[in-house]
């Protein structure tokens, strides 16, 4: 099926998809907020974030909030394009299944 081939293998993982969708809604999100919202462990979240970062889909910066170190993540232009393509393929897939 054509729509299936349009799916991005990186974004087929639900935690990675969740990270990108959340970052599409907000400019920057912290590690701890992701952990709380996605209900995942530190190790799993760290691994998925690293994978997205290696792919160039997200960027990060380190900062301090009330003297505590915070890592902020944001979606890159490449990440946004990949997410748009992936969601488009999902839409096609769902309409084909209906």
């Amino acid at each position, binding site marked *: 099926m054509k729509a299936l081939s349009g799916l991005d293998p990186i974004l087929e993982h639900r935690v990675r998809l*969740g990270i990108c*969708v959340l970052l599409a*809604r907000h400019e920057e*999100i912290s590690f701890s907020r992701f952990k709380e919202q996605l209900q995942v462990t530190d190790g799993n979240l760290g691994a998925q974030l690293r994978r997205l970062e290696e792919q160039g889909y997200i960027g990060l910066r380190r900062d301090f909030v009330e003297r505590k170190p915070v890592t902020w993540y944001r979606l890159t232009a490449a990440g946004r394009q990949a997410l748009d393509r992936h969601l488009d393929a999902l839409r096609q*897939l769902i309409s084909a299944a209906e």
Partner: protein
Amino acid sequence: MTDVEKIKENLDYVSSAVRAGDSHGGIPALYFMWGALIAIGFALPDLAPQLAAPYWLIAGIGGGLFSWWWGARNARRQGVNDTALGRRYGLHWTIAGVAFLLCFLPLAAGRLPAETGATNFLLAAGLAYALAGVHLERPLLYSGLLMLAAYGVLVLLSPPYAWTLTGLVAGAGLVWAGLGRRAALRGGSVR
């Protein structure tokens, strides 16, 4: 599990994660602060007219800046940095501020009696808060609607101490919104 079932399950997971982070309720402390500032500020034209202008100059601008700072601080503590949303808040309340200044214009020019002028502030506040409820923070919708209802009553009945009554209604609306928001936060149903 088929591909379609797996995709559906993944989408359910993502949508519940997105819903878990939705925050459109505002900060209770700011509702209480503005409820008090408005109730006091609106009573001044009736009780101590000479203090009204300096009060609003300090409380209006100071309160606005403090709300901006507190809102940004709160968002960062919750792990979200969103300048686009901050700009939307800023634009909305700046336009509301301009509307309040325009309400003051006919009073300053002596073209409108003070009693009639008070209700214009309530109309502008009601619209500003109701629209903020639509676009920014849902609890503000109900306080805005309460202010608009009070505007209708004040215009039709013209009671004495119109400014004070206006401030009390607007302040009560905000305190109501703040209490609702605080209860929701304590109940853990929202972030």
